[in-house]
């Protein structure tokens, strides 16, 4: 901190509890900013010292689990990766849209992500009989790296909340789903062809519904290359469509 006197922060939080019939309303909490303070730390301080009923999710505190996604001053982000010093003295926090609201800042991303996984069949499809005792087939390091790059998605839901298309059309698959398809398409263990992937994302709720607003790309806390991956999938799916 550049000043001796710590800032007094106001966290304006959109509170609600559908289960208890509490309607959405803003509530202000005041905390003193500390060196290197993240929103996650500030929220814990509020819950510990001001209001134990405040609901928000966290597990890892290190941007790995994707639990603490929320709207920070209107933009999706992870509370644990957001330093308070990067914001003004008044910070608004709201739950991620699209997902089912549990209460306050806590939303159910799990059901949505699971539904997407089942809809897009985001697992290895192989006709080979699994031999659990066999040595795993080798993979070129470059390919493994490329798969890992896309596998870094933590399903935090920020791309979903940042997508204007998804806000209009709830059936749109979203960047998280398209990224997963791109990931499995790279994987040599998955035997599906582009024609198979077309059956999953070859319509206006799939890759052709994307309007390239790139909110997903710009808010992804993991910096995934969503812009280029979606464009790549679009070209591949158009190639299938023109056959």
């Amino acid at each position, binding site marked *: 901190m550049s000043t001796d006197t710590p800032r007094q922060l106001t966290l304006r939080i959109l509170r609600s509890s559908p289960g208890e019939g509490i309607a959405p309303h803003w509530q202000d909490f005041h905390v003193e900013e500390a060196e290197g303070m993240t929103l996650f730390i500030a929220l814990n301080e509020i819950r510990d010292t001001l209001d134990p009923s405040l609901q928000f999710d966290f597990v890892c505190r290190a941007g790995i*689990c994707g639990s603490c996604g929320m709207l920070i001053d209107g933009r999706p982000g992870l509370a644990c990766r957001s330093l308070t010093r990067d914001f003004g003295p008044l910070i608004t926090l709201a739950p991620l849209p699209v997902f089912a609201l549990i209460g306050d800042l806590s939303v159910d991303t799990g059901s949505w992500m699971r539904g997407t996984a089942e809809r897009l069949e985001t697992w290895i499809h192989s006709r080979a009989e699994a031999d659990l005792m066999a040595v795993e087939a080798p993979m070129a390091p470059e390919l493994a790296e490329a798969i890992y790059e896309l596998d870094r998605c933590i399903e935090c839901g920020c791309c979903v909340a940042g997508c204007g298309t998804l806000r209009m059309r709830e059936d749109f698959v979203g960047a998280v789903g398209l990224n997963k398809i791109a990931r499995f398409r790279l994987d040599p263990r998955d035997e599906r062809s582009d024609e198979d992937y077309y059956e999953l994302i070859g319509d206006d709720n799939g890759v052709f519904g994307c309007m390239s607003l790139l909110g997903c790309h710009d808010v992804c806390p993991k910096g995934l290359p969503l812009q280029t991956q979606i464009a790549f999938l679009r070209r591949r799916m158009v190639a299938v469509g023109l056959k």
Partner: protein
Amino acid sequence: MTRMLERSAALSAAVARPAQEIPLSLTHAAAHPPRRRSRWPARLDLLQSASGLFLALFLVAHMFFVSSILISQEAFYTVARFFEGAYFLATPQPWIVSCVVGGVLAVFVLHAWLALRKFPASFRQYKAFAEHRTRLRHDDTGLWWLQLWTGFALFFLAGIHLYGMLVHPEMIGPYESADRVWTGSMWPLYLLLLFAAEIHGSIGLYRLALKWDWLPGRNPDAARRRLRLLKTAFSLFFIGLGLVSLLAYGRLGIAHAERAGERYVPGGDGRLATTLAGGAGVMPAHVPGRQGD
């Protein structure tokens, strides 16, 4: 990783279901789909991009043709007669212009129809997007909103202009166009059309490059930043060129108002040519006679 929840009681039965129940391997549902998904979404997506690209390129060419009035009245006259085939056929044939306009109109209608698929289909969708845009304050999301409204305006503005050119192709010339701008009171429409078309076109070209990943260089984020600058420069240049051209037509239209309806004849009235458009009055080597003159 899916979100872990502290209050398991709040979870629905579906969420609480253990992940192990998902069939994780040896599933061939996608490999053997019950029926083949239509290929039309892919074709329509490509068509929307291709028709948009065509219209944007046409817009660029159109702006350069129209702005030839800044060189001289004769220059614009020459360009107009060129598109009537005056330099290939015995006499100018305005129906050729009608055919070109008809083709552009067809692509325009096709593009508008395809773009409609992306418009908000209900007030709920409209409101959801508007709120999202306001809250997110994201440049590209805002650009799409701008493209939506300029596209909506173009339905009418470009439609009127194209229809006029379709049915009166012979009324393209220095005096004819200037009279239309001023005496015909079309300048407000052309002013709005200029802004709507150039903004819509520049954003459209920018989005096309992102959509199909035509970004130059190895760093897509840096390329996108450069592309945004290019998009802004494109808009500013063509809006500027259009404004100056429209001003030239307006001034010529004001000066020609008392003789509105008179057709332009090269060399017929050098006074207007030299005093208003700054033209040198250079005559083409061969000036074909106008049909019906």
